[in-house]
């Protein structure tokens, strides 16, 4: 039996481009280093949040994606966050390991967990909700759909943002969906998979 939930909205960030739904919102035409792409995206989205500059790239990607996803919307404070990736916080872990040989940086150390991105988004958007961060080899639509549906069915959340947020070897791949009772596209494992593949094919 199908559930009553919909994929209300989704955002995609990869290859120097940001998609809001199927519409391209922003792109850097020339080959650009991730650091510059993140800064240009921040400016384009007209975000004013100085703390952004202190974050690692994984958190910056999460903040940018949430900004697109939540734009012009009133987000319930109990909107749950269910994210996943394969590399965890590996890039920041590597940076921290190098710094440990000289002088450790507390500002780097605090990002040596993948779920920090959930906290950063929650702080920025004042969410007080359930959250989970799964590490899996590849995008696992079934896991995300099951976990999100349980949160919604058991009234742990009014809405859920679920998806994939990866940063590995200077490559990045973000796909986040807002799941609620509003929208046209049914929330199912198949539809999540299809939307994720939309830009990946």
């Amino acid at each position, binding site marked *: 039996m199908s559930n009553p939930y919909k994929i209300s909205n989704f955002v995609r960030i990869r290859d120097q481009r940001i998609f809001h739904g199927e519409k391209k919102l922003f792109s850097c035409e020339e080959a650009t280093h991730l650091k510059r792409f993140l800064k240009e995206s921040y400016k384009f989205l007209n975000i004013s949040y100085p703390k952004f*500059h*202190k974050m690692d790239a994984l958190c910056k990607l999460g903040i940018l994606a949430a900004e697109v996803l939540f734009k012009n919307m009133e987000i319930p404070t109990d909107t749950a966050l269910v994210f996943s990736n394969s590399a965890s916080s590996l890039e920041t872990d590597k940076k921290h390991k190098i710094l440990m040989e000289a*002088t*450790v*940086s*507390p*500002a780097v150390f605090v990002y040596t967990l993948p779920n920090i991105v959930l906290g950063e988004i929650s702080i920025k958007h004042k969410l007080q909700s359930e959250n989970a961060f799964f590490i899996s080899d590849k995008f696992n639509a079934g896991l995300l759909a099951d976990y999100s549906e349980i949160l919604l069915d058991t009234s742990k959340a009014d809405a859920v943002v679920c998806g994939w947020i990866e940063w590995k070897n200077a490559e990045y791949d973000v796909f986040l969906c807002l799941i609620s009772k509003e929208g046209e596209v049914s929330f199912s494992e198949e539809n999540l998979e299809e939307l994720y593949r939309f830009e990946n094919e």
Partner: protein
Amino acid sequence: MSDLRTRLKQSIIEQLNLEEFEVEDIANDEALFGDGLGLDSIDALELIVLLEKEYGIKLTEPQQGKEIFISIDKMAEYIEAHRTK
């Protein structure tokens, strides 16, 4: 003394990734925490590391940080009096 303050501001901007600030945006007597630059507890730890790395000053008591990291002026005065490099 004013060179020290300028260098200190440059180091803080660089170390704390205050990308929206220039040296001239930070007044010598401006509060570094709270309503001023808006630094947080992680930034305080970074400032402790900065004092040790750049000026050879090792803070052992957390309370010391509260008294030193009030403003650029206060930090500069403390560095002048206690620097070992």
